[in-house]
């Protein structure tokens, strides 16, 4: 079974539902033949609709397709790692990001500009050189947050696939358990809400503004899951049509939970975006947390620089 065989399971549900439905009631003194025929027709109609309930889920995003983008962001984190705080601050799927040795060249820049004076030199030091490690670390955290958001999406779709397969399997097993004299119940545990908690650690107080937004996704999920009480639903019913109705209800509940989880991730990412935007739109360059203002020198040309700045081209 499993997600890969979702439609085969749906087909098995249909067959089993019709098979059981045929014998659920028998013609008797109290049950006329027309009732039996109407009953069987009703079961068959609802059993035939089962595949259509599962079909849309076969188009859920493939979690594996997030791997490329996640790996790309991991490479970026490697480039932005200063060596001060090398482990992934958010994702539990994280790893250690050794310091990017190329960035140590920034230290030698301090020496290079030692003999340089004047306003341009002062501004280069205060607005670019001094905040550079902090900005780089913030960028490291920001990329970690974006990576965690992608990992949360990936985990969400993976759990969604598992949950829809669980509904199909529980329905089939329930139908198979209906021949006895008992009144059964198949329990389904929705993993989709908890899925993003498995990815995200709770955000520590030391993390800057933007990061807490994505961290909130994790803690909200943890609150809901409560570590013990993952949301559950059940497949039950004494007759096939009741069982199929409970299956449909479970599917609708799953859709709600996917949308809820997706919205949590979406609003966290939107929060990050807002935080960055507000931090960068400040008129005071000292408050630009994620990107230092581009040094004027970077766009300088031989003609635009006075020789006494020490710049010889």
């Amino acid at each position: 079974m499993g997600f890969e065989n979702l439609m085969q399971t749906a087909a098995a549900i249909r067959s089993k539902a019709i098979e059981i439905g045929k014998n659920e009631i028998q013609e008797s003194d109290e049950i006329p033949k027309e009732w039996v025929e109407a009953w069987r027709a009703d079961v068959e109609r609802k059993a035939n609709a089962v595949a259509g309930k599962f079909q849309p889920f076969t188009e859920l995003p493939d979690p594996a397709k997030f791997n490329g983008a996640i790996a790309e962001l991991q490479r970026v984190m490697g480039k932005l790692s200063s060596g001060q705080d090398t482990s992934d601050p958010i994702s539990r799927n994280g790893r250690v990001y050794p310091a990017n040795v190329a960035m140590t060249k920034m230290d030698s820049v301090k020496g290079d500009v030692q003999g340089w004076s004047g306003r341009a030199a002062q501004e280069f030091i205060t607005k670019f050189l001094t905040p550079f490690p902090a900005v780089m670390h913030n960028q490291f955290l920001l990329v970690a947050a974006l990576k965690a958001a992608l990992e949360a999406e990936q985990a969400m779709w993976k759990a969604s696939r598992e949950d829809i397969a669980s509904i199909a399997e529980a329905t089939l097993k329930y139908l198979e358990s209906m021949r006895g004299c008992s009144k059964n119940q198949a329990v389904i545990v929705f993993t989709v809400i908890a899925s993003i908690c498995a990815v995200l650690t709770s955000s520590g107080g030391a993390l800057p503004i933007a990061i807490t937004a994505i961290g909130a996704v994790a803690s909200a999920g943890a609150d809901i899951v409560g570590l013990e009480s993952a949301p559950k639903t059940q497949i039950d019913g004494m007759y096939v049509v009741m069982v199929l109705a409970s299956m449909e209800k479970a599917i609708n509940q799953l859709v709600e939970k996917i949308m809820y989880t997706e919205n949590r991730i979406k609003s966290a990412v939107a929060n990050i975006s807002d935080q960055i935007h507000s931090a960068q739109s400040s008129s005071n360059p000292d408050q630009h947390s994620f990107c230092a203002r581009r040094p004027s020198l970077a766009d300088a040309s031989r003609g635009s620089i006075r020789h006494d700045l020490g710049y010889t081209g």
Partner: protein
Amino acid sequence: MGISERVDSMVVRATSPNGSITATVRGMDSIEIAFMPGFYQRATPQEMETQLAQVARVLWANRMREYEAILNEESDGNLIVDAPASDRRDEQFYEQRDNVVAEGSSPDGRVRVTARGMRDWSVHIAPGAIDQMREDEMTYAAVQAAEALIRDQMTKITELKFSIYQDEVDFR
């Protein structure tokens, strides 16, 4: 192998308290009965009835345990047999099911079996039957009575379900 296949192929055995009768149920409702050598020849009718009733009770209890174990294993513990009642109808179902009296008899009527709620079993053997019937005829008659009882139980549960839950199915 899924639930249906495992239930169809399950084999459950039971032995009466004094070890004189062994009974087997295969699948949903196929019964086999065997007497220990010499038991049939020396048993009194009352002893025969008591031992048959007791082996039937133990056999059915074992069968239910096995059935639950299969469901449990096949569902990783997510399939609950006889889930707690969620409304008055469920309560009614459980109450009335416990009081369903299922009956079965051999075609010649010489062996009759009844069970209330599949827990309280009694067996009645017609006077003189043990003297008149060979051992294999008696075991065959007991098997037929037991299988007829299981069919009767299933029919009565089907009727009970319909009487309680029919309104929840809008089929007319």
